[in-house]
């Protein structure tokens, strides 16, 4: 473990993610289950953050709320300076499309579509012409080393390959923020290292902010900061390295 150094604000620009007293209560029948109980969190632009915690601690809920997929029961969520409360459903969708990429443990690829078609999905919603879509998607697939599998369907790919397709899909829109829910949960350790190397590289070169929910210490150790969530609250924040300590490596 590297020494804990508080992360400095990189610029005057708004933080990538800011949550203020965010709570989330799930109702099952007449019983309330509080998943988040007042989370205050600031994630700067360009930061690579891991969220760890036991199952049911609320870390996935937090990720969904940051990803504008799930509204908080109370509190504010500000993404890149935009208060999500002010956005209607269409604008939330647009925000997800333009600014946020998602990577899931189970890859969540559409089975009937080929790799390149899966990668192009977010671009279709935005109305990008087919030719542009194809070249951008293919470029993204090359970047994750899967150009030669562009026309394969998910069932023809290994778990690691599927996850790389999913990463290509998450990054094809060049989002400012990428959220990963156990992105290495279903792949072997070699692939985990490859994926984390790639994520680190994108983080450094493009300044993309990553928030990864994980159980994997290797993933956590690669990040700038590790946030531990317990019983719907942030229990501990641990800074592992400065962002700028990566540059030049």
């Amino acid at each position, binding site marked *: 473990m590297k020494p804990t150094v508080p992360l400095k604000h990189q610029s005057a620009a708004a933080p990538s993610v800011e949550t203020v007293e965010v709570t989330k209560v799930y109702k099952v029948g007449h019983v309330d289950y509080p998943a988040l109980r007042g989370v205050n969190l600031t994630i700067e632009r360009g930061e690579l953050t891991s969220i760890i915690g036991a199952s049911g601690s609320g870390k996935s809920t937090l990720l*969904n709320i940051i*990803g504008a*997929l*799930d509204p908080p029961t109370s509190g504010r969520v500000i993404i890149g300076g935009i208060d999500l409360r002010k956005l209607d*459903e*269409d604008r939330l*969708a*647009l*925000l*997800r*499309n*333009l600014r*946020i990429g*998602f990577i*899931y443990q189970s890859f*969540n*690829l*559409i089975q*009937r*579509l080929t790799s390149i*078609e899966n990668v192009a*999905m*977010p671009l*279709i*919603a*935005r*109305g990008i*012409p*087919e030719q542009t879509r194809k070249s951008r998607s293919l470029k993204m697939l090359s970047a994750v080393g899967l150009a030669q599998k562009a026309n394969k369907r998910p069932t023809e790919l290994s778990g690691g390959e599927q996850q790389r397709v999913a990463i290509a*899909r998450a990054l094809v*829109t060049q989002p400012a923020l990428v959220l990963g829910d156990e992105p290495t949960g279903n792949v072997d350790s070699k692939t985990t290292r490859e994926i984390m190397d790639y994520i680190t590289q994108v983080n450094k070169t493009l300044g993309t902010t990553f928030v990864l929910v994980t159980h994997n210490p290797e993933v956590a150790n690669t990040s700038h900061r590790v946030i531990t969530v317990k019983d719907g609250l942030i229990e501990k924040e641990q800074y592992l390295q400065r962002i700028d300590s990566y540059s030049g490596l």
Partner: protein
Amino acid sequence: MQMHTSDTFKLAFKALRDRKLRSLLTILGIMIGSAIILALIASSSGLSAGIQTQVSKIGANTLTVSSARQFFGGGGGGAQGYQLSQLDVNTIKTFQGVSDVIPYYSQRATISYGSNSIDGELIGVDTSALSNMYKGLSLYSGSLPDPYDPSAAAVGYSIAFPTGSSDQLTLNQMISIALGGSTSSSLTFLVRGVFSAYGSVLFSNIDDTIFISVQSAQILLKTQYFSGLYVITDTAGDVATVQQEIETYYGDQVRVMNAGSMVSSVESITSQMTVFLGSIGAVSLFVAAVGITNTMFVSVMERTREIGIMKALGYKPKQIMGLFLSEAALSGIVGGVGGTILGYVLSFIIGGALPMSGGFRMGGGAPGQASSTSASSTTLTPVFTPELIAFSLLFPIGIAILAGLYPAWRASRMNAVVALKYE
């Protein structure tokens, strides 16, 4: 920043292709509904048009008078009821607006010559008056039989040139006529003239008819009572008043019909039939619509996770709704086009199965005596108006979209987080 419609349809197509059998069955349902509507409406319009063509061959200034009993009995004399005789011809001739009264005999008959035996009709009439009765009827060869030559006859085109027979009639050839039902009355005639192909008038096929003089028919049929009278009025405008005059004079002992009233009664029957058959098609299309809704619900449920993914990728609710609606619309388009083609073919099959001959007799257009197979029967030609084709193409699409509306809306309203967790 708007999703392209072409992309929406491409995605929808891929989704349909992914579930080929289910999509095909859904489309088949729409196709059948659409085909039934098209085929039934086109056939019944064709029937209506065919009948009207036949009716229109009778002049607008023509009335037919027949004994009322013919409605039940048909055929020549002998049955109970009022019987039309030369006296009636003379009486009606005196009515205001009547220019001529042409009496005729009509009887089903078997006409034979050489190796041919043709089931047709015998009409005994003043042959010089034929052109007044049947507009545009002309001789193909020979001449009209001399009214005072009891052995002279003229025949319709199909009798002289039967389809599927190499044995053809030549002028002045002898033919033999046996009356329907009895072999006792059989006479031979010399064919003096052959008419050009003409078709049916009031369900009586002129091409299958042998015409002889009234006098010969009187002898052959052994009766002085006519099967019916053709009443020619001075102008078409006189038809209504003459009809009323005859009806006032005879009461309900005779049936008087004119071309106009026949057209309107035919129209009312066929339009009711069109509505009835059209609703059968509509019901089947409605069943297909329920099928679409059902298929779509299953599809939305199965693809819950996919919907969650699309939401995460930034698809707006209306884009997701658009995707599912496009799937329904595509099914509707394929079903509509396929159904229209199928219906087109089907209507000709229906048309072929419903030959438009027999059923009605020349005498007053009364149904009753169905003819057996004629030498050449007029087949029903389906009528396809541009409106009908457009309806058959577009209605299934509209129905499919309507049917897909609710499932598509449900898909668009799905909670992204819940959808992503769906197994």
